[in-house]
């Protein structure tokens, strides 16, 4: 009975459990800080379990909907409303399930990591509340089926991220990074609300499936599309709007940075969801596809060229995060550009989309791993400047192994997971336009070059006298890193199985707008 209850209410529990835990944790913290640590760890583990079970049930049984406040969870269209879904609902399809898996795994890894990384700081109760709120809002962003609900979750995630970035004040530098991030996020969110107002004023609906079934691509819809793409690409860190990324990623605590990568990808999920499910074939697919491809190429190129002269290790990794976001935009943009064209879609469009989506999960894993290793190094050494580090490979052996796994994965070396998704992107984009694929490969080589430089300057060389008594990173940090490294290696050894079970249903769910509308409105 309890299992039935949990199974029926899974989409609501996946947001309710971290939300409740976030607000009970100050009350628990009055007992003692150690009890609060275990409470937060337990709540995150429970959230991760619920998210994984929900993802498994969606992959097995198809799209699930959950209506808040109705008589039954799947009563999307009440019988006296005239065919209109009037309540807020969560629509979990295969793409949402994939994002939930990412958020669950990375969320668990960072909470285990931050149990020891942020132990001796003041204001910890607010830190854990904000971290659980960030996890809750990211899960809400990827499961919701309502446009305004997505806006509310984006704002919650911006606020929680801004508070967490400014957590270590560091003579005001972290607060400057946080205010830059938050001003850009707020302006993006206000224009997102403007786009929602335009769409609501035209169609009198906020539900994504309802809007998709009523969409005619008028001039106002074009304006709304432009605003949506611009705002969500800003939140994801694509190139003309990427200036908040290096500051915010480098000055946040490392576990927060690893999750900020995932939050940026939740915004990228939103971009793909609105372009594919809300508009689908009504827009001019070739034009919008090329817009995404150009954003992707700029991100790749600017990201990797700005990364090479950096001295601060986390800032360098942040520029690489921008560059890898470009790969995702390139892959999915290629799939979008051939959307109406069935033969080309079968030849390479579907593989391009699968490559882009596979790159999302791979990037979350190896970029999270890299940021966690950088955090472990900074925790032991005390400085972020790579010129002052050296010879750490003698003492921090496990950290060096994890860093090597992450660096080889990001450069696209087999047998790690970066190779599988990058190969899919190269093959399909080459059939679309060879120049793009060649530029992507050059960017990959530059990525490898800059990570060889980082590895050499941090870990190789003779042991420096000022780092004589540096020990290995503490065990919870190594445990968090090990979870992500295990996924990197596992996905690298079995990419075909991963693509068949996880990625191909997600790509199909994005392309198939009619299936989404049918599962919500019930077969019109």
């Amino acid at each position, binding site marked *: 009975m309890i299992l039935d209850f949990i199974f029926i209410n899974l989409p609501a529990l996946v947001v309710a459990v971290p*939300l409740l835990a976030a607000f009970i944790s100050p009350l628990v913290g009055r007992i003692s800080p150690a009890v609060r640590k275990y409470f937060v760890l337990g709540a995150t583990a429970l959230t991760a379990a619920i998210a994984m079970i929900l993802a498994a049930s969606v992959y097995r049984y198809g799209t699930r909907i959950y*209506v808040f406040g109705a008589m039954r969870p799947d009563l999307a269209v009440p019988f006296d409303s005239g065919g209109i879904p009037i309540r807020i609902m969560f629509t979990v399809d295969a793409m949402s399930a994939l994002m939930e898996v990412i958020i669950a795994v990375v969320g668990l890894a960072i909470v285990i990591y931050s149990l020891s990384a942020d132990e001796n700081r003041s204001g910890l109760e607010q830190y854990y509340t904000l971290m659980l709120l960030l996890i809750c809002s990211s899960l809400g962003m990827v499961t919701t089926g309502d446009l305004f609900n997505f806006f509310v979750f984006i704002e919650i995630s911006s606020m929680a991220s801004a508070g967490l970035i400014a957590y270590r004040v560091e003579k005001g530098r972290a607060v400057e990074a946080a205010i830059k991030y938050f001003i850009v996020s707020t302006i993006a969110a206000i224009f997102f609300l403007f786009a929602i107002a335009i769409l609501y004023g035209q169609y009198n609906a906020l539900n994504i499936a309802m809007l998709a079934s009523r969409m005619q691509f008028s001039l106002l819809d074009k304006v709304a599309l432009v605003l949506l793409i611009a705002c969500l690409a800003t939140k994801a860190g694509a190139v003309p709007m990427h200036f908040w990324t290096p500051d915010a990623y480098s000055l946040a605590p490392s576990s927060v940075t690893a999750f900020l990568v995932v939050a940026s990808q939740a915004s990228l999920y939103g971009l793909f969801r609105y372009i594919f499910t809300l508009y689908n074939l009504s827009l001019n697919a070739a034009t919008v596809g090329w817009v995404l491809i150009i954003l992707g190429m700029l991100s790749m190129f600017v990201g990797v060229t700005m990364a090479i002269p950096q001295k601060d290790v986390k800032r360098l990794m942040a520029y690489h995060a921008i560059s890898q976001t470009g790969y995702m935009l390139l892959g999915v943009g290629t799939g979008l550009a051939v959307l109406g064209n069935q033969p080309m879609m079968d030849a390479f469009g579907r593989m391009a989309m699968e490559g882009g989506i596979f790159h999302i999960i791979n990037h979350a894993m190896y970029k999270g791993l890299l940021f966690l290793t950088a955090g472990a190094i900074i925790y032991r050494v005390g400085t972020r400047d790579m010129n002052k580090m050296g010879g750490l490979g003698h003492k921090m052996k496990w950290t060096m192994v994890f860093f090597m796994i992450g660096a080889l994965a990001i450069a696209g070396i087999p047998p790690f997971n970066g190779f599988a998704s990058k190969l899919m992107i190269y093959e399909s984009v080459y059939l679309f336009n060879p120049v793009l694929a060649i530029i992507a490969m050059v960017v990959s080589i530059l990525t490898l070059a800059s990570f060889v430089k980082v590895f050499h300057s941090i870990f190789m060389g003779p042991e420096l006298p000022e780092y004589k008594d540096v020990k290995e990173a503490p065990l919870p940090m190594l445990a968090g890193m090990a979870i992500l490294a295990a996924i990197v290696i596992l996905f690298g050894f079995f990419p075909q199985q991963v693509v068949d079970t996880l990625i191909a249903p997600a790509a199909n769910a994005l392309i198939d707008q009619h299936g989404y509308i049918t599962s919500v409105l019930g077969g019109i």
Partner: protein
Amino acid sequence: MRMSKIVRLSADIMFPFVVIFGWYVIMHGHLTPGGGFQGGAVVATGAALVVVAYSYQEVTAMINKTVLWFQESGGLCLFIGAGLGGMLIGFPFFFNWLAGSGSLFGTPVAFGPNSGDLNTAGFLPLMNIAVGTEVWGGLTMVILYMLSSLEKKQEGA
């Protein structure tokens, strides 16, 4: 430097009326415009009135920040708990399990324009009270924390 006697006396007289008006707006949220956030903001305005009239040290001697923090957390827990209450009975999250049931706030609502019965609308008044508590706790804490950093700057300058 203290405010003059007139200012302090006026604030003392106005404060209970402002708080009562705020609670009125919270409680009647399901009948008239207003509700949780608006009423909570009015109560926080009352707190701001007291803070302006008296100095920061006197106000923090009267209001404890920990109590405000617990009001904020408690309000939110009550909100989510009221939503989860429907789940225990077997309905989805945030189902209005008190509406029309005859118990607390359970009188069925009359159809069309009516004169407004306070006892109706299910768990909406409960959620209004929860949100109102949370909002006045949170906003008062924000005002007090902003003022505390002003005091620190004055001591340092």
